């Protein structure tokens, strides 16, 4: 046994040589594996010290909040009194008694279903087109397309472009061109709010995925394309489907993760452009609802249930996208 713990490699050999029942052999094998694991961990003890600071921070500020959120989603918790366990009551209330949540859920699903795929696919198409440009032009065009993503609160300029009076840019031009006869209240008329928000979200949604696509396209081995040409690839589209896409599945997945995050997290844009709450809750999103209950009403349990639903929606979308991306190029 002592040989097992100190030199695990021979330990495995000893365990398999032993005659015995299947079960005892299985136990011996497991023991040897555990011993190897322990030995390997001891070998790397310095590396755990390297990882520890980040792992602790990550655990406390990223992983723990998810767990805490799930825990509080089953309680009534208003910060002042201790949390009281109420089972699935929060979830039942959300889906059966909260009309505004259902509106918010519909809006978020609509926004995510439109801005997610369109933003993702257009980010790839733009990256692909940009990659066909000469090298020096590429950097400039990349900046033009990516600048809205990084310029933060600059999206507020859209409230001037879509201002409700005749001074608004969109109104002024559409009236001059004869499309409209009187100014439209873009940001307070429920009929127009959602399209405007979608435009603004798409404008600022290219994100880190776009950069990953450009970088990924530029690093695909040129010889693959040459070989493809020999094998009779006729045009750009065939090249895209048979060579480019299968070679950047990793980037596609990274871009997808970023797109899912961006499309479910819409909340700031709607609150700042259309007001909080917006007219008839026309662009009220799940994130807006979460902020409403978490930051204003202090119903933390209820807000946690909303957050948990968002987690689940994100994870399911990721799994679905993964399935699609694995089929690319076949």
């Amino acid at each position, binding site marked *: 046994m002592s040989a097992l713990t100190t030199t695990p490699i021979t330990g495995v050999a000893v365990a398999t040589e032993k005659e015995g029942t299947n079960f005892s052999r299985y136990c011996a094998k497991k023991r040897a594996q555990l011993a190897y694991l322990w030995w390997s961990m001891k070998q790397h003890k310095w590396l755990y010290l390297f990882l520890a600071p980040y792992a602790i921070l990550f655990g406390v500020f990223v992983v723990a909040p998810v767990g805490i959120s799930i825990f509080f989603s089953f309680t009534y918790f208003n910060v002042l009194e201790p949390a009281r366990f109420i089972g699935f009551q929060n979830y039942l209330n959300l889906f059966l008694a909260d009309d505004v949540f259902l509106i918010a859920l519909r809006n978020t699903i609509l926004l995510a279903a439109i801005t997610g795929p369109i933003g993702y696919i*257009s980010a790839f198409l733009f990256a692909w087109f940009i990659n066909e440009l000469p090298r020096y032009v590429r950097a400039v065009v990349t*900046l033009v397309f990516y*600048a809205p993503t990084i310029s933060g609160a600059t999206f507020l300029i859209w409230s001037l472009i879509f201002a409700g009076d005749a001074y608004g840019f969109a109104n002024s031009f559409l009236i001059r061109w004869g499309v409209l006869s009187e100014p439209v209240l873009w940001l307070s008329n429920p009929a127009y709010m959602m399209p405007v928000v979608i435009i603004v979200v798409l404008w600022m949604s290219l994100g880190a995925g776009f950069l990953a696509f450009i970088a990924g396209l530029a690093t695909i081995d040129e010889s693959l394309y040459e070989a493809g040409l020999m094998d009779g690839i006729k045009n750009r589209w065939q090249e895209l489907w048979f060579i480019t896409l299968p070679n950047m599945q990793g980037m596609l997945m990274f871009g997808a993760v970023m797109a899912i995050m961006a499309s479910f997290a819409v909340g700031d844009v709607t609150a700042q452009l259309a007001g909080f709450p917006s007219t008839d809750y026309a662009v009220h999103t799940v994130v807006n609802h979460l902020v409403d209950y978490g930051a204003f009403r202090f119903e933390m349990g209820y807000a946690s249930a909303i957050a948990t639903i968002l987690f689940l929606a994100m994870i399911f979308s990721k799994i679905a996208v993964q399935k699609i991306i694995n089929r690319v190029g076949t």
Partner: protein
Amino acid sequence: MVKVKARRRRVARNVRRPNRSRGGDLFILVVLAIFGWFFAFPLIFVLNNAFKPLNELFLFPPRLFVINPTLGNIQDLFILMSRSWVTFTRYIFNTVFITVVGTVGHLFFASMGAYAISKYNIPGGKLFFNLVITTLMFTGFVTAIPNFLILANLGWIDTYWAVIVPAFAAPLGFFLLKQFMDTVPMSLVESSKIDGASEWRIYSRIVMPLVKPALLTGMIFSVQALWNNPQATLIYTEQLKTLPFALQQVTAGGIARAGVGAAVALIMMIVPITVFVISQSNIMRTMATSGIKE
């Protein structure tokens, strides 16, 4: 080796591939021009508004381009800020302090952790990395409430640390650093080990200089997040508040502050864009390794 390869690729790129149609080239240019205008237009609008005198800001019909550019708006902003209760320099100091300490700490802790996972196959390393990938999706909104409770329990609410320490744990920087470190050859680490270098020495003297592009990229994402975030819920003492919050107060003045507001928008936009332009080539090198393999 890598450089030679890149040069060969560039040479090859300049030769027109025979399977490209002229019509397709034209189509690409037209599409990029139309959408380029869509992406650039609001930013051009912000830029022009910042230099418009008041009478042009309220011109009817509205114009995109400025006729008589003026620096009046930016001057007004500084006059306004110099009269505020908490001095303008204090807001700038707060923002710079939070951004710099948050970013440096994030890069230090994340690169150390990434080194351990990337260069060695330690038990649990893969699991940890998969956890990081999953959390890439979770934005600040969904974890805001538990984060507040944790920070409150630590007694950090209303201090700089409430913003700085959670920023250390950002998953995106860790992810990009790990992916980029994977491209550093293991033989380099092994040969230094034979020469008698300690883990710390290999990490700080050999791996860190080689992953500079990834460090710069991590810096961009971290700066971007910290620079733009007003964090009004975590810090409420006026003297500790950040620049975005102060600027929000300025623009809250409404129509009378339209000119100043335009100057504010320009300032908020210019910093992240400048940082991006300076480090663009490094970012591109890092993003080339960003693929998620399953």
